[in-house]
């Protein structure tokens, strides 16, 4: 595979952020979204995408504020709907590079239906889901990825419901590319997003992130750093996992590329239909 | 202005019959036409109807309060809509299914039986009925009906439908002369 472009990361940030217009940002100190934003920007720069043709779409929530700060065509939509908006953009103009930034509540609760159908449809989008296992913006309510038994402001006695494994969900729904990274491994996120951007088809990247303000405070994490260590200690790269005993993998999250397969891509099929009709072949 | 209603079960092709008639009147006979339909949730089996209004002048309101001709493909339609027929109106019933008519001016012709026995396709009963309607009441020209049929019916089914239309003309002529004879006999008595 082609090697990504080399660059100086801090210069790069200034080049891609709307730092004069919209800073300071809204995220709490210790939050994982900023780290992920850096990784996404490095991935976009690494792929040398023309920023005039990059569209970043988001829904509602902390992570969905990312488009505000980056210098692309940016669309901050309604709660749970960014994939549906992005689908319209991509089908209308397949030449645009459409990236969805979303959170666990946005993409898996209110937007869960759009997510699975986008997987099935296999339209060439890259979805980056920053999963902090809680609703941060509204004050720490339980989300579809809050682990069973963990505390949230609407689950003071512990959450009864089981958490979604977003990667299993999207892989099961037929996504062409599924990967998981963690904020602790910021450079890995960058690499996974590069692969997702280059994938022709629907690509889903889950980023395991931390919300020290709510999830951490409710669930007895002393600091953001401790939450990052939790990520380090509870994730196993999928390649290493192949050589690990099953009992040692109990309760661990697999990271790396979890699904990578090729299906016909929606906009290509559609463009072919248009061409066939124009040529009188249908 | 003439108001025609095709009524029966969903799946009997009433909408298609209405569309062919409407096309014949509008596109071929250059009349003013409105076609409306009413149907239930059932694609097959529920009550279904298609109304066609044909006029020389602009038609303002598309839902007339009376019918001039009712083509009833089942008993339910006769029971339900006979009362809507205007004085001087005509009921044309599919004798295959309709056993009792409650309107004085009527023709009873076994459209479905004809379709099944003479054409081998029960599904073209609608076009047999359309043919009979055209023959008996002249609401559109025969040429218009045939022309509209060519437009609306897919190529593969055209042949049997052309024959169905002819069978409809024929059955109507027979029914009309039988009725004339019956009326004449009655007069003698």
């Amino acid at each position: 595979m082609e090697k990504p472009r080399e660059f100086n990361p801090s210069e790069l940030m200034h080049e891609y952020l709307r730092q004069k217009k919209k800073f300071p940002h809204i995220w709490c100190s210790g939050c994982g979204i900023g780290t992920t934003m850096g990784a996404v920007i490095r991935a976009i720069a690494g792929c040398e995408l023309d920023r005039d043709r990059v569209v970043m779409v988001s829904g509602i929530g902390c992570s969905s504020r990312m488009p505000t700060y980056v210098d692309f065509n940016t669309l901050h939509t309604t709660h749970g709907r960014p994939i549906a908006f992005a689908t319209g953009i991509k089908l209308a103009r397949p030449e645009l590079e459409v990236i969805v930034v979303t959170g666990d509540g946005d993409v898996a609760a209110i937007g869960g239906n759009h997510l699975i159908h986008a997987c099935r449809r296999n339209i060439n989008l890259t979805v980056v889901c920053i999963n902090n296992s809680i609703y941060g913006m509204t004050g720490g309510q339980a989300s579809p990825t809050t682990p069973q038994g963990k505390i949230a402001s609407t689950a003071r006695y512990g959450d009864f419901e089981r958490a979604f494994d977003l990667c299993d969900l999207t892989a099961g729904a037929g996504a062409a590319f599924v990967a998981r990274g963690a904020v602790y491994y910021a450079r890995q996120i960058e690499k996974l997003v590069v692969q997702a951007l280059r994938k022709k088809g629907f690509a889903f990247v889950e980023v395991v992130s931390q919300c020290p303000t709510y999830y951490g405070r409710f669930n007895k994490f002393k600091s953001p750093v401790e939450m990052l260590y939790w990520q380090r200690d509870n994730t196993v790269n999928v390649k290493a996992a192949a050589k690990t005993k099953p009992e040692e993998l109990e309760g661990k999250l697999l990271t790396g590329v979890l699904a990578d397969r090729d299906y016909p891509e929606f906009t290509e099929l559609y463009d072919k239909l248009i061409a066939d009709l124009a040529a009188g072949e249908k | 202005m003439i108001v025609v209603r095709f009524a029966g079960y969903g799946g009997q092709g009433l909408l298609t019959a209405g569309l062919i008639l409407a096309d014949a009147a509008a596109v071929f006979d250059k009349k003013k036409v409105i076609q409306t339909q009413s149907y239930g949730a059932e694609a097959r089996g529920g009550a279904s109807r298609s109304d066609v209004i044909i006029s020389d002048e602009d038609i303002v309101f598309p839902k007339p309060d009376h019918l001039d001709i009712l083509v009833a493909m089942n008993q339910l339609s006769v029971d339900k809509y006979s009362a809507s027929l205007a004085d001087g109106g005509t009921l044309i019933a599919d004798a295959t299914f309709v056993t009792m008519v409650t309107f004085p001016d009527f023709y009873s012709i076994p459209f479905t039986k004809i379709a099944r026995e003479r054409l081998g396709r029960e599904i073209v009963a609608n076009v047999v009925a359309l043919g009979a309607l055209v023959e008996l009441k002249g609401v559109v020209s025969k040429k218009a009906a045939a022309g509209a049929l060519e437009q609306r019916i897919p190529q593969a089914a055209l042949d049997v439908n052309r024959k169905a239309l002819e069978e409809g003309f024929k059955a109507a002529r027979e029914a009309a002369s039988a009725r004339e004879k019956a009326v004449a006999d009655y007069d003698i008595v």
Partner: protein
Amino acid sequence: MVLMQGNEAITRGALDAGVRFFAGYPITPSTEIAEIMSVELPKVGGKFLQMEDEIGSLAAVIGASLTGLKAMTATSGPGFSLMQENLGYAYMTEVPCLVVNVMRGGPSTGLPTHPSQGDVMQARWGTHGDHPAIVLAPSSVLDCYVLTVRAINLAERFRTPVILLPDEVVAHMREDVTLPEKVDVVDREAPHVPPEWYYPYDDSTTDVAPLAPFGTGFRFHVTGLTHDRAGFATTVPAEVDRAVRNLKRKMDRFRLEIIQVERVHLADAEVVVAAYGICARSAEAAVMQARAQGYRAGFVNMKTIWPFCFKLVERVAESAKAIIVPEMNLGQLVREFDRAVCGRTQVVPISRVDGEAITPRQILDVIAELARPGGTA
């Protein structure tokens, strides 16, 4: 001249007006629109998308419109309810699009195959917050074509969603119709400034702020949050006030251009029937019969429901003895008449909610009663 269904005429109007994107979800009685668009759009290089629900449908339409394509969706009651969320988003972000809502009986699943006019207020106030609305109501198959073209033109010109609100009768009936050979088509205004000077919500030098398509170098931000002229979220009271008022101001200035009503026999009318959609046909038939019987009756066909024709109704109130408002609901638009008339004349509603159209006879009876010396209904 051809025999054409209302829903089909809507698709013809949309294609002739330049619509090149459709996203929708099947629902009776609007489904024919999606079916036809799925066949016709790829033939002209356009895109059709069946989404997983109506929420996603309008989301995809707004996304496509932001790339510069003229875009639309079509639905009916239950789907229209789901669309309210993103309809509000389109108003707030000022993204042109057409939403066709073929009205069937409600509430809820109601009467899927029978007509109603129960969504008139929902079309105006269905989404939360303050915003203007353009809502057009066709009463014939030709109207379905002409008003669809007009709806697209208004959407592009004023950077707003526009709602076309046919009832089931108009959408499903077939009429002989001769479509215009050529229609005037309005295209979206492009920015007049280079990207570094571009503000997507700055209308200080043009009637409406130009909207740059995504992917053309302007790289701006769009959000459903209340935003400043650059498009970024704001809570500064002066900026918020400007943003909310501007939405309304934009439409108020062009009110007279947007409102289109057909007026017949108003000059000497004692009794005026004001109606829209299929009821306008009943009203016309009733008034013709009333005239033939010597009653001084007139009628108004409101092809634009919203914005409401306040000025016209005020004028009618000066001269007419009564205004009859027939609606296939329990009295929705009639309240606007009450507001405009302020007791200066009688406003008489006729309601019908049994899934059948109001007949000319029903209206004629009321005209006769009101026209009688000293008559009230």
